[in-house]
Every structure is written in C-alpha cells, then in structure tokens.
C-alpha cells in the first residue's frame, strides 16, 4: 500500500486515447469529468476512427499519473465509451499540424519561399496573388519555429490543430477494436487485464 502522505509525483503530459460511440452529447459528458476536477484540457481532438461508428478522442493534459488513472476510470465508466488508454509522451508518436497565412508580396520580395519551405519542413498549400498559406506538421517547438520566422513578414493568421497520437505499443489495437465491435451480443471483453500491474499500465 502506498503512503498517502507522500507528495504527489510530478506532473507531466499524458495522452489519453478514448474510443467511443458516435453519440451526441458524449463530448460534454467527457469534458465534465475534467472540468469538475478543475483540470484544464491542453489539447483535444476527436474524429472517426478506422472503424465505422467508433470515434477516437485524443486528449492531452498535464497531470500526475495518479490523477490521470482516476480520470480514465471515470471516462471509461461512461456508457458510450468503449475503451480508454493513457500514455506518456515517450509512449506515443504525436503530431500537430499548423497553417500560416502570410502576404504574398512581402514573402516574395523579402524572403525566399523556397528557403522557408526547405528550412522549416513546410509546404505551400495555397499560393495566391494576395497571400500564401504554409503548412507544417510536427511537435510544438517545430510548428512554433515557423511562427517566429514568419512574424516579421506580416503573419496574417495562424492556426494549430489539436494533437493526434499513435501509441507505440499498440499491436493488435485495430484487431481488438474490430472484435469488440463485432461482439454481438455481449460476451464481456477481457477487462482488467493489466490489473496486476496497474501502476504501470492502465486499461480495463
């Protein structure tokens, strides 16, 4: 039994992956789990998964593992949630996408578009007479880098996507989900499979 007097372990970024039904109101139900504990969501992405009618949420928060574990249990408790996983940044491969809109004339006059693209791993998405839209994909510091480069040239608009993450140790996820989806009616899936190492891995 751990000592509850000890200070909480340090906070770090955790990537929470949630597989859900495609259900109106579920986003709110999940968000409430964070807001009632006054936990800020740093990034949230939700989109259809590779399996029809199953959605995937990627949620990033900065918290201790103990808190994250409890949050995940509360999320997985929701009726329309199929499965929840959490991982540290080291356990996932993650990306964010950013779009940058800059005036075409200044860029053309004062900077070499080609150099910008090459040095920042960017790609021109739209080139018009009045503006150019660049796109980069990467970690936060990489997408931030191009902002500072473009700012002196009159950056008009910037937008960054939420984080998406692929879990490194996720062999068989897709197969599991498909099995999960096909199970009609209700033989229980193997739950609690990591219970005996629940301080290390969380899933139910």
């Amino acid at each position: 039994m751990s000592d509850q007097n000890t200070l909480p372990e340090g906070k770090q970024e955790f990537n929470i992956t949630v597989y859900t039904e495609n259900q109106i109101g579920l986003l709110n139900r999940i968000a409430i789990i964070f807001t009632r504990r006054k936990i800020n969501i740093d990034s949230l992405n939700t989109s259809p998964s590779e399996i029809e009618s199953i959605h995937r949420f990627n949620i990033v928060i900065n918290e201790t593992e103990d808190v994250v574990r409890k949050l995940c249990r509360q999320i997985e408790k929701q009726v329309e949630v199929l499965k929840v996983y959490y991982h540290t940044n080291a356990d996932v491969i993650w990306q964010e996408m950013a779009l940058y809109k800059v005036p075409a004339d200044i860029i053309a006059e004062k900077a070499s578009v080609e150099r910008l693209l090459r040095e920042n791993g960017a790609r021109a998405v739209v080139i018009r007479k009045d503006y150019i839209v660049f796109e980069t994909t990467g970690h936060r510091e990489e997408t931030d880098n191009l902002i500072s480069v473009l700012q002196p040239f009159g950056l008009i608009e910037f937008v960054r996507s939420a984080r998406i993450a692929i879990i490194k140790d996720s062999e068989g996820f897709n197969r599991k989900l498909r099995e999960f989806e096909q199970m009609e009616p209700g033989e229980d899936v193997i739950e609690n499979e990591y219970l005996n190492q629940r301080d290390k891995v969380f899933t139910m």
Partner: protein
Amino acid sequence: MEVAQQDVLTAPEQQAAVELTGSAALLEALIVEGTETIFGYPGGAIMPIYDALYDYKEKLDHILVRHEQGGIHAGQGYARTSGKVGVVFATSGPGATNLVTGLADAQIDSTPLVCITGQVFAHLLGTDAFQETDVINITTPVTKWNYQITDANEIPEVIAKAFYIARSGRPGPVLIDITKNAQIQKFQFKGYTPCNHIRSYRPKPIIRPSFIERAAQVINEAKKPFILWGQGVLLGKAEQEFKAFVEKSGIPAAWTILGAGAIPTDHPQNVGMLGMHGNYGPNVLTNECDVLIAIGMRFDDRVTGRLDKYAKQAKVIHLDIDPAEIDKNVKTHVAVWGDCKETLPLLTQFVEAKQHTEWLAKFNEFTRQEEEQVINAELHPQTGEMTMGEVIDQLNGLTNGDAVIVTDVGQHQMVGCRYAKFNKTRSNVTSGGLGTMGFALPAAIGAKYGAKDRPVVAVIGDGGFQMTLQEMGTIMQTGIDVKILILNNQFLGMVRQWQELFNERRYSFVDIQSPDFVQVAKGYGIAGRSIKERADLKGALEEMLNSKGSFLLEVMVTKENNVFPMVPQGCSVSEIRLK
C-alpha cells in the same frame, strides 16, 4: 384508444407492426419493463404522454405528486424498498429542472431510476421556446445516462436501453427527454424487446479468480481483520452471500449508512455504524485492524475522515462492481472487481472458518464504553425533556425492527440510523451521499408503494419536513399509509451542533419556527398528535402505528442535544469524540 393489441414481448420480426403514437409506445415499454407505479406531475410538454396514460389507467398506477422533486424522491423510495427501477414523469423546463436534486441524490446513492421529461417540439429546440431548458446538458453530470428523443421511432430502443442501464451494474438514474412531436408522432411499432447488451457498456467487470485467492490468503493470514460493508451488498441482492461470508470468516463487520440492514442489527458480528456519527469501536479500530475488507462501499469522506490518517496500518481488500471506485480514495492491496453476489461466494469458499473472539471482544469493549458515556444518556435520559434517541428506541420496541424507516437529513437522521433496529433488508431509506433535506416525506410515500405490506415510518426533522410538506397532499389524495414522525427540536439541529462545537455557539440562522404541524396535517385530512411529555411517548407511538392510514406524530425533543460520537471534520477516525 391506441393500446397495442399484440404481445409486445414477441420478437419484433415475427410481428405485424401496429401504428402507435410515441406516447403509447412509451407506456407499452414501461409495462414490459415491469413498471407498476409512476410518480409524476403533468404539464404542457408532456401532455400527450399523460393523454395516452388515460388509456392505461388499469395497467399503470400514476401517483400525482405535489412537486417534481417530491416525484423523484418518491421514485427513489420506491426503488430502494422494492429493488426495482423507479419511474418518474415531469414536464419540460421547470418541471425537468425540479428533478435535478433527486437525480443528483440518486446518482450518488446508486438508485435505479428512469425519468421521462417532456420537451418542446424538436423544431423549437434551442430557440428559448416557452418552458424550454437544455435538460440533457443540465442533467449530464447527475445521471448515469441521458438521451433526448426527437423521433417516435427511437422510443422502443431508447427506453429499453434506459432500463438496462439504470438497473444493471452499479445502478443509477437515467433521464430520457422526449420532444412533444415525438410523443404525438405515429409510427409503426413492431413490439418491444428489452435490452441486455450495449456494445460500449460493461456493467460488470470480469471476475479474476487469482485476485479472489489472493484476497482470501490475506484474510486467512490476518490477526485482526475488519469488514466494512455498504449498499453494494443490498444493490447486488447479496445479503445471504454476505451473511455466509461474515459467519464463516468470523470477522467483525460494520456498515455505512446505506448498508444498514444487510444483516440484522443484532447479529453478534455486526459491530455498528461507520463514519462521522458512527459507533466508537468501528471508527477507532479501523486504525488498528491489520486487514480491512471493504465490500460494496466507496470510502466516502464521511466514512473515512482524514484520508492521510485512515487505516494506514491495514492491508485493504476492496470488493466493488465499479472499477472507478478502486483506489479512488483509499489505495487497495487487493482489488476484487465484480458483482459481490458473485465474488462473495467465491471468497467464502477460500476463507478459513475462524472465530476472532478476542478481536471481536475489543469491539464489544468499545461498545460498552459508548453505552456508558453516550448511549445510556441518549436512550434513558435523566432530564425531563425527551431525546431523539429514546423516541427511536421506543419505536424499535413497537415495530420489532420490521418497519421501513425513512429518514430525512440532519441530527434525527444520524440518531435514526444509529438507534433504529433493522431485522430485514431494504429497511433503511435515507439520503446518504447528497444529504438532501426534504427527502423523507416523498421518499416514504414511494417506499410504501415499493413495500406495501410493511409499515413505513418517515422520521423527519422540523426543518426538513418544511421543505416538502406539500406531499401530504399526495398522501391525502392516494390514501397511502405513511406514518410521519417529526422530531422537533426547534432548530436546524445539525448546523446548530456544528456552530456550538466549532463556531463558539454563534447560532447563525438556525432557530427555525414551525407551523402547528398537527393542524397542517389536519388540513390535508391526516390525523395527528403532538406530544411534549415522556409519559405520552409510548401511547402516542402506538396510536400512530395502529392508526388506520397515515398519521403525523410530532415529538418535541431537547433543543440543544448533540449527536455523539462524532469525528470532527478534518480529524482521523480514531480521533472520534464521545462528547
């Protein structure tokens, strides 16, 4: 009349569809789900359902309450005594928002409910239409599940899901909001099939035998094991399995307020109530036991007191159906996830038969000290004024522990739960987690519908009674037999107790005036009596219990009596005060 003329349980594919309105389909669904009694209040947005109900009067008993909050508390009382799902109707807007307190109460106390609210026409949603509120978003944090129906075709499937979710796994309240157009809309009803599976919903975790074996090993090695049980035992209908475990293991067992009655109060291994106003021994010895076996309880802060000083010496074994409860407040050594009706027999099988005589004697010694310093004075006071405890004690003597006791919230609740004797399960109905004043009177009405052959006594403080006393109108109209016992100390007693103990007797707005309760009851056609003298107590209680129909008895009790023992907020359970 649009009552379906077919067997609704027949598999849908074998049936010819009949044309029904959404409202009629809803009522058909309720009948198949075993609903007998509905508590509700009509209004504009739920009128089509009420109109359809007119045709179903023979099959569905509708109780017209006086306030939607009364309706949902009645549904809770019904569910708690019957073990079935309580069904509640309310209209849109204010009708629906009046359910929120009851939903929160049912959510925290795991009470199975299906609440149906009317909603404005679908094309008006989001336009601030008359009596429109965003009921789904308002109730999301206080429901196990909720859903808005905008098309009658959805009704059979959604209602089936609602009942399945409400009653399965860890039970809870479900709210279904139905727009008026869906209630009116005619559709091809192909019969009703109850739900027993939802892809994304796992009501029960899989039992892992290796963890049962580990738990048994820890229990068998224990010198001073201690069982804490909660409402999970009752919700799982596992009273017999629990008793077998307790008796084979020989381990002393104590209960949370909602667990009361799972084994009789006088069972030799039942060592009392846990928590802030629980018994002396169970609290102190929590910090002495070597193994703590928590069954169907959630380590509420009113049970644990200060967490960092709670049972630090003990290995904790936690049996619970809800994985989210494991490690939530108290770290467990062995977690036994599952339905305790299934896990307890497995555990009993591996547990060695023992008698922890010396260890049990230690609890009994604490009981003796508590009796000497607290209980004797409460049950047999030497002063002229009556105490709440002696009223409950006299009531015990007259009901033989067979009554359903429904308590409100406050000092009388703690006294009631401490001193009431329960010989039967599902006898203690109270607002445990939320602490909702005004709960008892409507809950007692529902409790009587859920247990029609048992006496139901609502024990209520003078403050709480005034929050929902209009439900005497429901008693008047239905003629239901509920005994109302008001313990009147002319104060909001629990707050006053805290003010006395922790705020230097600064009695800020706790002296509450009350009307002549007997006269008010008389206005509702309910017989009543008020007493001040001890000499009248037994006779008055007998008169109440023997009266035909409902009866209100007001007992004037000591004004400034405190409920002890008490674990002051922020203290550890072993710092429990006897005075």
